[in-house]
Structures are given as structure tokens and as C-alpha cells.
């Protein structure tokens, strides 16, 4: 189900070019609009579809399992911190989803690694990974539980 671009919607900003993990979204040299240069190499990750500020990118479904009349469209609203999906079935059934994509304002939860002290030799020799949470170290103390680590089970999807 490769992506394609509505040329009249695209303004050639290039966000899709930057985000495409396959590097197949390019800017057309003549019209200066984005296009998928290699649709068969598209793995339908929807990154470009979500990144497009003009909603100019859509995904074409193969006719065998996404028959005519269906639609799967997404709107990533960064300012509200949400992502919304609208799924339309061929028979007219419609499903709408709204989910959070961040719980903190963008850029506020980026770890400042430059300010963290470098690892000691002991840490380098250790089999543990950098910042590996303490509570999964089964060699340290007794059995770790949610309670002993002051954690709480949350209903639903935890981010």
C-alpha cells in the first residue's frame, strides 16, 4: 500500500523527505512537489502521512484487501499532542480514534546527556546497559515488585 501525494495540496515543504525511513520521498525537480520515487519499496510506515502539515499524502490500498470506497486517514496534531484516525469501511461504517502522542510539551523530556557524568570503568565492564533501571537488577536485594519500587499498575495504555 504505497504512499502517494496529492499534488495540489503539497507545497513542497520537505518534511516527508526528511522523515521517510526508506528515503523514497523526494522533491520533484520540475514541479517542486513531493512524490514517492519507488512505491514498491514503501513499507507503509505512515511517517510521511503523519508528518505532512498539509495532509497531502495518502496511502493507496491494494484492491484485494482494501476495496474501493475504503479510507484510512490520519491527522497528527502536534500542538494538541494527539493523533486521530478515521477509518471508513466500504459499507459506510466509520471508526474514529483519538490518542495522545506525548504527555509533556515537545522537547521538555529530552535527556541532557551532556550534563550526565561519564561511565566509570566499573560501569563499562558491567554487563548492564547505560541507565538500566535499578528495579530489573535481580542480583540486588530481594525480589523486586511494583510495590517495592513504588510503582503503580495503570489501566489502559501507559506512555
Amino acid at each position, binding site marked *: 500500500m504505497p504512499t502517494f501525494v496529492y499534488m*495540489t495540496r503539497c*507545497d*513542497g*515543504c*520537505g*518534511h516527508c*523527505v*526528511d*522523515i521517510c525511513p526508506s528515503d523514497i520521498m523526494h*522533491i520533484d*525537480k*520540475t*514541479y*517542486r512537489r513531493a512524490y514517492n520515487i519507488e512505491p514498491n519499496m514503501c513499507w507503509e510506515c505512515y511517517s510521511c502521512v503523519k*508528518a505532512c*502539515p*498539509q*495532509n497531502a499524502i495518502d496511502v493507496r490500498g491494494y484492491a484485494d484487501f482494501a476495496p474501493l470506497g475504503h*479510507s484510512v*486517514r*490520519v*491527522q497528527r*496534531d*502536534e*500542538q*494538541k*499532542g*494527539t493523533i*486521530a*484516525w*478515521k477509518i*471508513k469501511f466500504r459499507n459506510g461504517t466509520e471508526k*474514529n*480514534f*483519538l*490518542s*495522545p*502522542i*506525548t*504527555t*509533556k*510539551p*515537545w*522537547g521538555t523530556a529530552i535527556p541532557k546527556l551532556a550534563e550526565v557524568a561519564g561511565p566509570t570503568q566499573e560501569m563499562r565492564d558491567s554487563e548492564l546497559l547505560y541507565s538500566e533501571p535499578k528495579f530489573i537488577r535481580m542480583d540486588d536485594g530481594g525480589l523486586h515488585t511494583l510495590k517495592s519500587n513504588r510503582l503503580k499498575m495503570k489501566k*489502559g*495504555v501507559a*506512555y
Partner: protein
Amino acid sequence: MQGYVAIMVLLVVAGTLFDVIHKGSARYFFDNWRKSKTKGAKEVGGGELVSIAVQTAVVDVLASGEFCNARRRLAHLLTMYGFIIYLVTTVMMVFCYPTAATPTPELVPQLWWLGGLMVCLGGYWFWFFIRVDVAAEGGSPFRVMRADLFILSLLASVTLGLIWAFLQAKGGAGARVLFGLYIVATTVLFGAVPWSKFAHMFFKPAAAFEKRITKADGTAENLPTLSRDDPEQQKRHSMELLRDAPMDMGLGIKREAPRHY
């Protein structure tokens, strides 16, 4: 000159009509509108239509609201308002003050200069620094395609017009040659409407209006219409994690301008 201006107006009208018929854009626009009317979840009333038309005119047309990139928006505003001022003052000078017997008020040529310089500022800024193939793709600013016909003929027309006016005021040599080149560039600008982007000033507002209509009638081109603004949606289980989050979370990936390589 009055005859020339009238011919240019006719060329723009004829070119736009040809473009509309050739591409079938008007038929597509009305067909689409009719279709969205039948598919829409609610009917858009007359009052709402007027309000949408006003919003389109103010936000999308007068303030170039569709641009996400602030630099592109500013360059577009400079070019657009510069061109309008330049065009109106040119027509005023040609039709209202055609001879020495009817001296032009000082303000009009000053506005003409201001308009021309605004077009040059916005246009050259766009051409050399903002265009996606130069700013992000690393292409040469001197690589010219047919798609550049509008911006290049506009810049050539205004630049040559300004140089010609300057030379004429100073009584310098070459004013006649510059005037000839100015006329050629202007004729290309207004005569090449079917092959250039000139007609965007007519079809872009129509597209922006249609986009707002589809949002109002609920079709939204199949795009989701759910938003966190809606108090009903805030009660959703999935929104629990955002209960205390600010309504404006700032920009995510759009904090950085795209640099393709």
C-alpha cells in the same frame, strides 16, 4: 500604453478561462462541492457559508494562512502586496495621469516604487534562499524550469521596470532598450497564464474555500475531525493521560526546518 494595459487584462482573462476549461478545474470544483454536499454529515447554511468565505478571504487570501513556513509566508506576503500596489499604481498612472497636462500626485509613483521593491525583496528572497530545491535539496539557484515561468517573468518585469524608471528619471542612456525589455517581460508575465502559475491567485482561494467547507460539513476529505478541544473528547479514556497537559504542547518535528540531506 492604455491599449497595451487593456490587451494585458484581456490576455489574463482569456488565459485564465482557457486554463479553467483546459484543466476542467471549475467542473472538478463544482462536482466535488456537489458530492461533499450529499456525503456531508450536516448542511452548511447561508450564514455559515458567508462566515467561511470571510475566513477564507481574511486568513487564507489576505494573510497567506496556508503557508506553514514563516519565511515562505513573509516572502509571499511581500510579493503579493508589492504586486498589488505596483499593479494598481501602474494602472492609475496610465489611465488617470496619462499626459504631462495631468501631473501625477507625488504619492502614486512613490507607492509604485515601494510596490516594485517589495516584489523584488520577496521574490529574490524566495528565488535565492527559500525555494525547496535550493534551501533543502542543495540545487543551484540558476537552474531554471518551466514551472518558474511565473516567478521569473514577474521578477524580470518588475526589475526591468524599476531600472527603466530609474534611468529615465536620471536621463541615462539605454532607457529605451530597458523599456523594450520591460514590455517583453510584462507581455510574457500576463500572456503566459495558461503555462505559468499566474492563475494560482484565482484557484488557490477557491481550493482554500472548499477545504473549509468540507471541514464545516463534516466530510473533511475523509480526514479525522476529532479534536482535543472538544469537551466530549476530553472525557475519552484515551485522553486520560492528557488531562493536566496544556492545550498547546508546542511543535514536535516541525520545530526544525526540513533539511533533506
